[in-house]
């Protein structure tokens, strides 16, 4: 079980390996924007089906835990080191940077933030909020006519959000 001591489980302790990776820098922010379709629309429906058969509930966490130094009652586990190759990369492609900034601005706009194109603290906080896993921007195989009244009713800017 996840460790707790209080009756109402309010002190539930989550192992760090079970925690979602926080959005802390531009790289993780770019992953976020990519995952939810801000950089390029996501074909969500095609991602639905797994090639494996049957239904499983396996847990799959990256890396191995460092088990040394664990004492009774110690719920903190060392976090698996992440491979960070950022320093070794060449200078970012200007086009890619532009795509990132554009995606960032889109995210800031729909999140009610100041649209600066800068990865600021407010944007970081917004990205780390609990959210639904469905992408915000999806592909559409067919070119379908979208009624402006529909888009308006759904709060979507047609030109920006739909193919």
């Amino acid at each position, binding site marked *: 079980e996840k460790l707790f001591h209080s009756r*109402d*489980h*309010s002190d*539930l302790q*989550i192992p760090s*390996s*079970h*925690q*979602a*990776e*926080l959005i802390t820098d531009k790289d993780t922010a770019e992953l976020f924007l990519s995952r*939810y379709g801000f950089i390029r629309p996501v074909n*969500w*429906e*095609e*991602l*639905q*089906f*797994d090639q*494996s*058969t*049957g*239904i*499983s*509930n*396996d*847990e*799959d*966490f990256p890396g191995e835990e460092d088990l040394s130094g664990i004492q009774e009652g110690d719920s903190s586990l060392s976090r698996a080191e992440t491979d960070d190759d950022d320093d070794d990369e060449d200078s970012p492609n200007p086009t890619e940077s532009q795509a990132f900034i554009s995606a960032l601005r889109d995210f800031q706009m*729909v*999140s*009610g933030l100041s649209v600066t194109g800068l990865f600021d603290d407010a944007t970081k906080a*917004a990205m*780390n*909020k*609990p*959210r*639904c*896993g*469905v992408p*915000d921007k*999806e592909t*559409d*195989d*067919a070119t*379908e006519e*979208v009624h402006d009244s*529909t*888009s308006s*009713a*759904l*709060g*979507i800017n047609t030109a920006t959000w*739909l193919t």
Partner: protein
Amino acid sequence: KNTDTSEYSNKTFSGVLNGSRHVGKRAWGNMAFSKMVLKWRLIGEGYSSQLTIQDQRHIISLAFRMWSEVSPLEFIEDTSSPLADVDIKLGFGTGRHLGCNQKFDGTGREFAHAWFLGDIHFDDDEHFTAPNTGSGISLLKVAVHEIGHVLGLPHIYRTGSIMQPSYLPQESGFEINWMDRKSIQHLYGGCKGQYNTVFDWIRKERTQYGEVVIRFNTYFMRDGWYWLYENRTNRTRYGDPVALQVGWHGIPPDGVDACVHVWNRNTDAVYFFKGTQYWRYDDDNDQVFTVDPEGHLYPRLISEGFPGVPSPIDTAFYDRRDYHIYFFKGTYVYVFDVTATRVSPGFPRKITAVFPAVVSGDHPGGSIDAAYFSYTHNAVFLFKDTLFWRVVGRSRDRWRRPALPRNDLLKVEEQWFDICNVHPSALKV
């Protein structure tokens, strides 16, 4: 106006085709389920480790019901059919889960995901809680959001929308707001149907200062259910419909033909009519009278209490302006003088004669479903099927259009919103 759902969306789906959900092209806001009754199941291998199974099923059932209350959709929990026959499957999982290609990210950020016309997965690494718990993530709110996706709604960036992508801590008693209702109704149409009766129930109350004030509430009744309609907010009370026997004790549980509230200086009596009988309601004790203060036993024959009025009737309403009850049966109307306790001379008369049409031919004719005097609109409405007619007022309408003869009919569309059925199995949720 008789709103046909086929005008709302290009529905090319017919449920699940060949067991596959990968049914082709769609765009948010344009396509939807083509059937109105959908089955759901919380799969056994996908229970949460945080709430009891009963709580999980109850909360999810409530989430489906909330969508049912604002759309023509009905949802049934199906725990016995083959899985392939279940339209919406729900489950909890962590990391790689339930054969899903989209791995959950652990505690934090993603709390769930769903597929259009498909299934819903909840990340059990999140701290899901029951409604109004205060802490954690409300399972109810997340479920309502994900069901919205399954039904065809995208993320909506509108303050107050349940379809916002980010989770906002649940304020007490969150509900589906007006715009979200219109969004789902754009896909599935609005709610329509016939009513047995519609009436305003008037009551006296004392303010904190001892003043007597008159208040009223509007009720719509259909078969064994009823809704309280809140005129100021253009919607029904949250959580309605309610079974008749829950709110009105002693009246026929499968529905009534009419209800009238006779309210004047001398009389304050609520009557329910069904078949050849009628009941008087005891407001003080919230049940029908068995014996009223005048010594009458109930149920009582309509022919005894209202001599000259046939039974069964189609519907009736009390017009406080002239102290008459208007009884409708077939193509005739009987005007009953409550003071004289008899049908007024010259009646019955044809409905079309007493309430002539403004536009020739545009008239319910007869077999009225419900007749309703509205204190909100200070007007009489006649209901038939999914249509409404408004009787021209004696002052306001005729002041605007003096050529209108008194008591003529106008057609009124979409006056009352979101009076929606839920599946009978959801009545107790």
